[in-house]
């Protein structure tokens, strides 16, 4: 019979050999059995194996830590290496393994001196935020329709949504390039010359459309899993269908909504193709971070250390922000979202 304390100790990683006498808070009811164990003189490993068989939870816990550390190492090592590249002074980029070739933390400042990198970041941030907002709103409506309503043509329409994702973005380029450079009189008050080129709309529009199918599918999946009873209750209580979506379904799908938001935000933040072609690359013209990073690249030389530093600056704060925001979103949507 096993010791109940073993199960409740969250700090027990199961991988450190322990003094067997310490495991008997009851004063060693099984003295005899222990004596035999001692005679067998098992090594810590065997002891651990024996304990593990008795108590598989320990193995899961140990496996869990191994997995966590493995994942941490594999995801973080390239970043570490990127940091080493960033710290290596210009032109000494050779044989970097675990330490930089020289030490030049100035790169992190230089990044902003060479070009106004913060403006690119800001642009990207705004564009990503706007696109995410558009995507979440539009995809929520569509996801609700696909996930919770029965109507003719549901499956075909859903597949139609996907079609945009079948095409390499380059395929859209020529018509979209024309479109965004066409002057529309009704846009003149907003953009000056009536075209969308060089405005945030030139990015927000296509990027929203491109990342919308993913959000629609995520939200469809999550919305469809909310029991009908809850929506029914909300509607009887006096919400419209949309109200029920807003007050019950979205909050209950918080993990899905937040994930759709995070995926969209980051995807837009880092998008390559349209970011590159739909602005002229000028920070004042809403060029995104991608143009900023590429700006460290010359015809015959590439400022790798600056690109690396810029990437770290561009990515890490955003990732942290996004994760924290996501946690807030999830807890905010699920707890007291309706506190008015």
């Amino acid at each position, binding site marked *: 019979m096993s010791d109940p304390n073993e199960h409740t100790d969250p700090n027990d990683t199961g991988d450190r050999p322990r003094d067997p006498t310490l495991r008997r808070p009851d004063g060693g009811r099984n003295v005899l059995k222990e004596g035999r164990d001692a005679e067998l003189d098992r090594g810590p490993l065997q002891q651990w194996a024996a304990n593990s068989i008795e108590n598989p939870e320990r193995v899961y816990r140990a496996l869990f830590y191994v997995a966590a550390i493995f994942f941490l190492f594999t995801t973080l090592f390239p970043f570490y290496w990127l940091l080493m590249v960033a710290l290596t002074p210009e032109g000494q*980029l050779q044989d970097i393994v675990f330490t930089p070739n020289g030490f030049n933390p100035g790169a992190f400042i230089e990044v902003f001196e060479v070009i106004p990198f913060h403006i690119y970041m800001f642009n990207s941030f705004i564009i990503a935020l706007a696109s995410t907002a558009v995507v979440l709103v539009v995809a929520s409506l569509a996801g609700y329709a696909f996930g919770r309503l029965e109507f003719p043509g549901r499956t075909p329409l859903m597949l139609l949504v996907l079609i945009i994702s079948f095409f390499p973005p380059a395929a859209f380029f020529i018509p979209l*390039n024309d479109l965004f450079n066409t002057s529309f009189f009704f846009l003149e008050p907003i953009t000056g010359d009536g075209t969308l*080129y*060089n405005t945030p709309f030139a990015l927000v529009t296509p990027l929203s459309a491109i990342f919308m199918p993913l959000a629609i599918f995520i939200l469809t999946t999550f919305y469809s899993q909310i029991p009908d009873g809850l929506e029914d209750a909300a509607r009887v209580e006096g919400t419209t269908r949309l109200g029920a979506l807003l007050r019950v379904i979205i909050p209950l799908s918080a993990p899905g909504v937040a994930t759709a938001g995070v995926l969209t935000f980051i995807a837009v933040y880092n998008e390559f193709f349209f970011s590159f072609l739909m602005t002229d690359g000028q920070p004042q013209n809403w060029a995104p971070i991608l143009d900023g990073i590429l700006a460290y690249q*010359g*015809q*015959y030389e590439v400022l790798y250390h600056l690109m690396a530093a810029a990437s770290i600056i561009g990515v890490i704060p955003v990732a942290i922000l996004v994760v924290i925001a996501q946690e807030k979103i999830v807890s905010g949507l699920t707890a007291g979202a309706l506190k008015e």
Partner: protein
Amino acid sequence: LGRGPGSNTVVMTADSGVEGIIHSEGDQPSVQQALWDAGLDEDIRIEIQTVVSDSASRMQTAQAALEAGRAPPDIHMMDSGWTVPFVLRNQTVNLTEELPGETLSYVNENYLDAILETARHPESSDLHGLPLFPDLGFTLYREDYLEDAGYDTSSWATDPPQWEEFANAVSDAREQAGLDYGYTTQAAAYEGLSCCTFNEVMTSWGGAYFGGVNNLFTAGDRPITVDEQPVIDAIRMMRSFIEGENQNTLDGYAQICPSPIIQWTEQQSLSPFDAGNAVANRNWSFAIAQTGAEEAFGENLGVTTCPIGVPEEEAEFDGTGGTAAALGGWNLVVSPFSDRKEEALQVLEAFASEEVMLTVFELGGYLPPNLDLVAEASPDDVGPVARYGDVVQAASDNAIPRPATDLWPEQSALVYQSVNSAYRGAKAPEAAMNDLAQELEQSESEVQTNGN
């Protein structure tokens, strides 16, 4: 959201390097000032739109704007390698019609012919772009190491050695000096291989893509000669450099190139040389400025053009053999969609003045399209390049442009893939070049069938 330049501002695309010299703080000399001094209307200001500096990306940006009929930019800075396709698509202003005759004749008479060719309409020979600066391929080497190894390089500058001699010298010098690398060059599968490094080697062996220099700019009805012996030999020599004694190599050529060159471009090949870890390097004029500075190798830097495979006389095709220097460089092209075409043309006109060219050279180290001016420039302002004026002159004499027709980008991809795979030994040189010849033939034939 309101944007757009003032009415007298001409927007020009440029990389950050050029941008840095257009305007200046206070009284410092600047290109803008030089332009005004050269007679540009004082109201007209240039505004630079920086673009990503890698050539392919810049082409995409230009293409995006011009396909959409968008201006500004009013002036596009175009690589000499891909100006012609835009010209052929009527996306440039015909300067022959628009510039004053005086300027035109100055340009036609004094500018480096090879670069002018890259800015002309292939059929009418009208000028559609004004070269801003040419660039030329050089072979950089360490005189000190070579001399230590017992080679006399004093005549190399204007009288490049034979490849064989060069290889032996480099090889010996590397051993002598205990360096990691001998000769570093660019052989990655990219435009730089087809336009330049391979073009140079091939030319030095008397080979050519399309049967000599006369057929460079007229696609369609021209011979395809990439499967001829000189081309094969050039590849085999490079394989000797890379692999040493091995299949498909040429006897008697030492192994001097590190094998990674097959994935190297300019920067990666320059790094070891710059770090003092290589004997020789093939690169552009900016590399001279970088490594010839006093803080760097100073006088120990030797510069020449491409070593010689076969003498000019023995070359199979016109204009090949002997030494060669691949031609790069950038042209200025006026957008036909510009609202400020007149102003833009004025700017171009001013750029064609000698003072401006010199200013550009002095401030940025960009070679003037009129290479005679190199000698006139004050060495103090220009830096190390001035020291090698004679080499620059020799290079310009032997400049070999790429066959930059509208088909060139397509053909270039075919060429660099084949050459790279032959370098790597993935294909035998003969097989690779035969396949390439077929592919090029098909590409060329499109011109006839489509009646372009």
